[in-house]
């Protein structure tokens, strides 16, 4: 019976999202099997969890009474270091991402440069900042320099990819119009490409500044400077009131960053 005739009799069910019943049930069964297997492989030590429950409550309670004072020196040093790393890495990363982004745009870069730049972007985006930080710490020694280079490297991957995508779908007529006046490659870049990508570049830089700050709070775990080391120590010593204080500061700075970047973005557009 057709669906119309059925509906006339009052029989109607929603069309399934996937029409082929074999594929549909195959997907459902596959998903169920995966979930069972995945959940089965999660080993939970309930005794340990029960023991930790009181610690969890302590941690939540610590947010009511954060302790900014007893490790004041460490916190201030760590936050300042994080902030300096954030600023320098963003500036350097954005500056370097412009040539890489230009090189990774298929419509303006020659093939060998295109592949080189795409390669840099892929490596930078695939590995978590922490992994990169481990390598740079080995190379440059402990301290904020390794952290700064890590964040700058991650910034290049992030910014250059988006910049390249922007350049790839920019309005080509404007470029041709400038080129038609007899402008050189640099002049074309300056007069036709730059005005089109600049507002988004500024917006993305502000967004990346925000991300870099958040990341700078963790790469300290592997010795790359910043507040992460202090936070790590306080957590492993169960000094949750200090951890809570640090987390609150991080949240406040991220909020401030977001608020000001939305203003700057509105101002540039």
């Amino acid at each position, binding site marked *: 019976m057709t669906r119309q005739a059925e509906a006339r009799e009052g029989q109607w069910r929603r069309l399934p999202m996937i029409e082929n019943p074999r594929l549909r049930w195959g997907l459902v069964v596959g998903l169920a099997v995966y979930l069972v297997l*995945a959940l089965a492989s*999660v080993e939970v030590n309930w005794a340990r*969890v029960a023991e930790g*429950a009181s610690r*969890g409550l302590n941690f939540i309670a610590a947010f009511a009474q954060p302790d900014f004072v007893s490790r004041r020196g460490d916190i201030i040093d760590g936050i300042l270091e994080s902030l300096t790393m954030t600023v320098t890495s963003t500036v350097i990363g954005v500056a370097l991402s412009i040539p890489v982004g230009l090189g990774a745009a298929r419509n303006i870069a020659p093939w060998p440069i295109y592949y080189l730049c795409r390669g840099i972007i892929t490596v930078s985006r*695939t590995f978590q900042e922490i*992994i990169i930080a481990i390598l740079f710490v080995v190379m440059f020694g402990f301290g904020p320099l390794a952290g700064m280079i890590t964040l700058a490297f991650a910034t290049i991957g992030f910014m250059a990819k988006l910049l390249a995508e922007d350049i790839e779908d920019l309005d080509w007529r404007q470029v041709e119009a400038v080129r038609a006046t007899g402008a050189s490659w640099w002049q074309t870049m300056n007069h036709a490409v730059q005005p089109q990508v600049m507002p988004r570049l500024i917006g993305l830089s502000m967004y990346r500044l925000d991300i870099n700050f*958040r990341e700078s709070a963790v790469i300290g775990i592997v010795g790359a400077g910043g507040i992460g080391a202090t936070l790590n120590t306080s*957590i492993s010593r169960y000094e949750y009131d200090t951890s809570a204080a640090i987390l609150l500061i991080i949240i406040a700075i*991220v909020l401030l960053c977001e608020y000001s970047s939305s203003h700057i973005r509105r101002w540039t557009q």
Partner: protein
Amino acid sequence: MPVSTSPQGTPIWRLRTTRSQWLGYLGWLAGACLFLLCWKVISDNTMWVFVEDAGRQGGDLISRMLPPQWAYAHRLWKPMWDTLNIATLGTLLGIAMAFPVAFLAARNTTPHPLVRSAALVIIVASRSINSLIWAMLLVTILGPGVLAGIIAIALRSIGFIGKLLYEAIEEIHPTPVEAISATGAGRMQVMSYGVLPQVMPAFAGISVYRWDINIRESTVLGLVGAGGIGLQLNAAINSLAWNQVSVIFVMIFVTVLASEWISARVRHAII
């Protein structure tokens, strides 16, 4: 910016031009000073002797990584499976928590402005704190293992999915919602008929995108004891077995690229 070209240009205009130009210069100068100051702080905290040695160290590192000890790979399948589970289960748990939070945080679906502020606070707190920090905390609370990793990923995902989803909810067409309310539908029915169909594509896209990011994040959670391939990475680095580290890197690289490809395909199919 008004520009006066003739020398007889009106003085007021020239004043404004000069002034905004000076402001621009000042802004750049302040930025440059800030950058130099930050650089100074970093440079003071750096042992430059090590840095001069960096090239040799880097070369040394690469020579120790090569050739990778491929035989080690067969011991990585289980940690890799754990990593995938942390990312996938964590994303699912995150979605389950982010979904109601987003509806509470969107201006047009929230039951009360106070509830909205509370939901926004949850989103901001979750977004500001890296999943690795969540993992550190959870490892001290729940003990080391995959469970801490799953919950850490879930807690971090709430903010990401919640923020993008509530923005999508705020952008829906209001008239279908009005039409559904006009039929006498209850609150939940208005959500499921008027709002949900409109945000479903965005929601699916956001979730898959976050899953892809979570795969990347879950590769390092083991560094703080929260399970997955990061545990092996940590062990290999601590024992300076760099030829094992390179095997792990290759596996992470392939997995992340594969997940990125899947995520891009799925999102493309949805849109």
